[in-house]
């Protein structure tokens, strides 16, 4: 009887150890994916000359936006202000306090508008101004929605390099 009990407790101990290793690994994965870098699949027409329509794998890093080091020209991952479950990829055009002028409806007219980006906000735009839902529709977005900076393309392999 005691032999059986000992066997079962050994098995239980072993399985708890295994589960702890898996849990630690998942925690490590979470920390690297939220604080250091992770691969991201991006697709859609809005960044067309830079990123492909059918889907690119890019490497994004999560350090510089926490230090406030992202600036105009950086491609960033943003939590969409219209749907918080969705991530969008856009380019920062202007930071807080800067004036930005843009074409309201580039496919129909040349009418342009100039706005000043309010405090704590950034102005984001897609590279393909004809098919992009960006700050021209929903206005400047709070800096806190920026989730990471895209630093280089990983796949397709012939397009490897920084953006």
């Amino acid at each position, binding site marked *: 009887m005691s032999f059986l009990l000992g066997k079962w407790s050994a098995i239980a101990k072993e399985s708890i150890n295994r589960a702890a290793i898996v849990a*630690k690994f*998942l925690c490590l994965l979470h920390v690297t994916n939220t604080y250091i870098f992770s691969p991201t699949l991006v697709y859609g027409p809005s960044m067309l000359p830079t990123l492909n329509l059918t889907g690119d794998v890019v490497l994004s890093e999560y350090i510089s936006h926490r230090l406030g080091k992202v600036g105009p020209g950086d491609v960033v991952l943003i939590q969409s202000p*219209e749907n*918080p479950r969705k991530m969008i990829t856009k380019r920062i055009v202007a930071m807080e306090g800067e004036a930005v002028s843009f074409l309201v409806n580039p496919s129909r007219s040349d009418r342009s508008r100039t706005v000043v980006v309010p405090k704590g906000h950034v102005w984001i735009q897609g590279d393909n101004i004809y098919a992009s839902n960006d700050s021209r529709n929903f206005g400047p*977005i*709070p800096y806190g929605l920026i989730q990471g900076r895209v630093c280089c393309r990983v796949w397709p392999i012939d397009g490897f390099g920084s953006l």
Partner: protein
Amino acid sequence: MGLQNTIFNAFNKSIVFGLVGITVTDRYAGVCPIRGSSMSPTFNPSSSSSSSFTDDYVFLEKFCLDKYKFSHGDVVIFSDPTNYKGRCVKRIVAMEGDYVSNVNGATKVPEGHCWVEGDNSGFSSDSRTYGPIPLGLIEGRVTHVIWPPERIKKVDRRIPPQERLAF
């Protein structure tokens, strides 16, 4: 040799503890101090002094961030839209699609946004100054006050008075 081993083990343990701690506070639950009197009857009811001893500490749950499902009256913590380093705690007054009446008539809360206001409306900078905030800024929902001990209680979901909402 024995000393080296102990130091190595302690180092290893602290790293594992840190990783697990960060993961849990990011994804599941956390504790956060509350500064200021903008939520005064609910948190910091007597905050005449601004010392950190009298701050309230609250318990945050983050399961709501999976689906971003919130309801009217939830107390949430979100990163300040005018300064990404700061964080605010306010009560959700209206969700997307609702109309809120304020100084310049009724405003419709746009898609994916919510309207937040402090309980102490005299001392609160909230959606009445910076407009509706995106749901993506929200970092967690406050469920309990856990410090000071004499005021440990559940933070209830209080529906705002109906005249503020214009339907």
